[in-house]
């Protein structure tokens, strides 16, 4: 059965990636989208480590007093370390944005956030503002980039 370990783990990685991507694309909840991103990243990381895995090899660390043995490929492991840390940075930034969106719009529903954002963008552009509910000043053309009403910090 050991011959199937590789395909099994790859299926696991692909499954995590697919579940994560499904969640990011189809979920309508901002926080759950971030969770789905975490899952998708986990899947890709497993995929990368698998790319350097070698049967009957040891971890790529020289032990004192032990004769040289075949080792697994260290490069994908280094790549995954980099990818994990990058992923955390992106997640944290995404969460700060989620917090701000919740404060501003009072909702975490993507469809609703998108609709409100489009109204705001149109208003800021000075185009066809279909109805700016919370910013009465939004309808007029802006004099310059610096003159947007400051949001409450």
């Amino acid at each position, binding site marked *: 059965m050991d011959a199937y370990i590789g395909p099994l*783990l790859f299926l696991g990685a692909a*499954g995590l990636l697919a579940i994560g991507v499904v969640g990011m694309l189809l979920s309508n909840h901002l926080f759950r989208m971030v969770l789905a991103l975490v899952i998708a990243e986990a899947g890709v990381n497993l995929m990368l480590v698998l790319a350097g895995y070698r049967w009957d090899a040891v971890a790529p660390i020289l032990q004192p007093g032990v004769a040289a043995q075949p080792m697994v490929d260290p490069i994908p492991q280094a790549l995954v370390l980099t990818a994990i840390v990058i992923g955390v940075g992106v997640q944290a930034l995404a969460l700060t944005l989620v917090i701000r969106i919740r404060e501003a719009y009072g909702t975490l529903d993507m469809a609703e956030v998108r609709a409100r954002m489009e109204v705001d963008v149109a208003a800021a552009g000075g185009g066809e503002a279909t109805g700016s509910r919370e910013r009465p000043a939004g309808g007029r053309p802006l004099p310059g980039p610096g003159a947007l009403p400051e949001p409450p910090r």
Partner: protein
Amino acid sequence: MFWLLLGIVILMLTSAVLVLVLDNLLAALAASSVVSLALALVFVILRAPDVAMTEAAVGAGLSALILVLALRRLGLVGVGGRRVGEGDDA
């Protein structure tokens, strides 16, 4: 070894699906931590101790901590009627 890994993979995939379907966000977050921990175990088996350490420390620890802090900020931790105290994060 195969059967152990099969178990871990099934655990990972089930938890991943749970992340998407659980109503309680705190529970979904816990499920995502389960994925990370299971993944760290897989990394140990794949002879990647460095990656396993990082995944456990960052994926299961730090990332979960950031997510919990964000949930608390969003006021969503009390969904099940229970508030999460300060100590639960550690």
